[in-house]
């Protein structure tokens, strides 16, 4: 590990000490996902702030890992909670985590989604000292929890500070486990979107939808119902669809004469998604539910694209109650038509929305979000103490105590 290279000259971070931080990602690094993206952006921002960061994560192909990430083992397909999940578990993984903790000499270890039965839970079990945990979703269903209640309870008692990324995630925690959490929202790397080169210049007539078309909760059909009416007002209007699309299914929902107004870009990389957003005049998020945060809205706002979104509570919060983006009544196509006509008819309105959106997104820039996470680290870090391997109070740990110290090193 390269941590020791930086240890000689401890850099100063805005008057505070640079921390040695270990971050645990529970899901495979090579599978796209919200938690993985969060861990990546957090780790990179913390390093920008001058901290020493190591990430441990399951990964299928270790050669793709960035230099700050360590191989936490292959994910295995395990039936869990009614579906097949890709998790890393077992004694080999536990020993891996133990070695990572010993070699990392971390001031604080930050686990993500601690109750997912993967590396994060193993870390809570195998580590002792300042541990911070972040809850991302409602993954910990009460049934799964009650089965392993004693295990979960013991692991959670070792967590010194809990963070929830949304009110929704916090509520799950409060209802199922008890206790509370600090709310620190997801961040966005504003510059990655604000500075992306557009695919084509904006022309005032390009509407963008993002998401799998077959997923009803993404709400594409709400937009498609509004589409003929919108085209009546703006005959040259284009709808750009980004994400895995069933084109035949989408076209079947529209009159034949509207088919040519659709453009399918398919699934895009993060970078190309940013470029597509920079080319759009309006981003529409007609989601009908199931959204706990709305990171895509922040990405569009960072790209300077005016946002029109359904009035889900999570969206309203991100949009600062409609000040940083226009909202319409959820699932109401005629209200969506009304709002979109207003936004499309006035370039002044679009500019105002884009400016307000960008200012709002800047508040969620990772640099601010990570600073609040560091405040949490500072409040649990003990001077002169590091996170250590926990061999107390656990049967397996007691039995393994003799073998593990000599065996792993």
């Amino acid at each position, binding site marked *: 590990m390269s941590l020791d290279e930086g240890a000689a000259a401890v850099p100063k971070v805005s008057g505070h000490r640079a921390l040695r931080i270990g971050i645990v990602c529970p899901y495979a690094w090579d599978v796209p996902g919200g938690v993985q993206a969060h861990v990546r952006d957090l780790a990179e921002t913390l390093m920008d702030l001058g901290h020493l960061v190591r990430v441990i994560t399951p990964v299928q192909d270790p050669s793709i890992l960035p230099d700050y990430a360590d191989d936490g083992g292959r994910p295995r397909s395990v039936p869990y909670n009614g579906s097949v999940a890709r998790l890393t578990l077992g004694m080999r993984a536990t020993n891996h985590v133990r070695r990572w903790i010993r070699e990392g000499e971390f001031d604080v270890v930050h686990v993500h989604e601690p109750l997912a039965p993967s590396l994060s839970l193993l870390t809570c079990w195998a580590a002792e000292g300042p541990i911070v945990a972040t809850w991302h979703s409602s993954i910990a269903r009460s049934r799964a929890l009650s089965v392993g209640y004693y295990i979960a309870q013991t692991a959670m008692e070792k967590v010194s500070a809990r963070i929830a990324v949304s009110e929704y995630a916090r509520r799950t925690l409060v209802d199922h486990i008890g206790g509370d959490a600090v709310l620190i*929202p997801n961040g966005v790397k504003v510059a990655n979107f604000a500075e992306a080169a557009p695919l084509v210049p904006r022309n005032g007539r390009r509407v963008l939808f993002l998401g799998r078309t077959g997923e009803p909760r993404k709400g594409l059909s709400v937009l498609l119902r509004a589409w003929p009416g919108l085209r009546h007002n703006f005959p040259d209007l284009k709808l750009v669809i980004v994400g895995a699309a069933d084109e035949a299914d989408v076209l079947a929902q529209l009159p034949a004469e509207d088919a040519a107004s659709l453009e399918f870009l398919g699934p895009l990389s993060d970078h190309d998604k940013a470029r597509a957003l920079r080319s759009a005049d309006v981003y529409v998020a007609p989601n009908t539910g199931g959204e706990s945060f709305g990171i895509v809205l922040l990405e569009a706002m960072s790209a300077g694209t005016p946002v029109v979104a359904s009035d889900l509570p999570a969206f309203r919060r991100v949009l600062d109650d409609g000040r940083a983006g226009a909202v319409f009544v959820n699932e109401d196509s005629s209200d969506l038509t009304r709002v979109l006509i207003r936004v499309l008819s006035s370039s002044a309105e679009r500019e105002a929305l884009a400016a307000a959106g960008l200012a709002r997104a800047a508040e969620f820039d990772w640099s601010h979000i990570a600073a609040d996470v560091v405040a949490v680290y500072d409040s649990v870090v003990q001077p002169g103490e590091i996170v250590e391997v926990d061999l107390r109070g656990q049967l397996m740990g007691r039995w393994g105590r003799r073998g593990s110290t000599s065996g792993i090193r």
Partner: protein
Amino acid sequence: MSMGTAVLIAAVFAFAVICALYLSMTAGRLDRLHRRIDGSRASLDVQLARRQAVASELAASGLLDPATATVIAAAAHAAREAGDQDTRVASESVVGDGKRWLIESDLSGVLAEVFDDSYEVAEVMALPGGHDIVVSLAGITRRVELTRRFHNDGVRACRQVRAHRLVRWFGLAGRTPWPSTVEMDDTPPTGLIFGPGEGRTLDT
């Protein structure tokens, strides 16, 4: 010895072993919780000492009008004295420092009153050296708030385990005093809350 007695003895023995294991694991859990609380309580002392230092520095910086500087200096001085006295008895117990939390709350109150709006904050930040010290103050007030919260979380988790019947019957907590939460006003000044996190739009 009949078959029945042998089974009974084996069952009793197994039960005793399971009980012993359970008790030993619970004792381990409790020990860990106690150490976590000791740690978080020590962290709180460190953060409060830093807050007092930043407040004193601000009062002495010449960035504030004399009336404000005097009020902050007085509150910070009282907090330092209370903190010093408390640390001297800290090894004994954490009881009896109710007065200290009133004094620390006073410092929170003074800071909250002075930096209650963005106008005051912007005025100070515009002065040379003002930006850095305001950022330090914002950082430390947030850290005090977080540290106390995490400490009290730990205390509550510990009390929950200690309230358990078996823990009380077998005296698993030993002679460690019943843990107490720290109750004080640590609300950060509204003018010093930056970003979209708590206390702002997202938590409403």
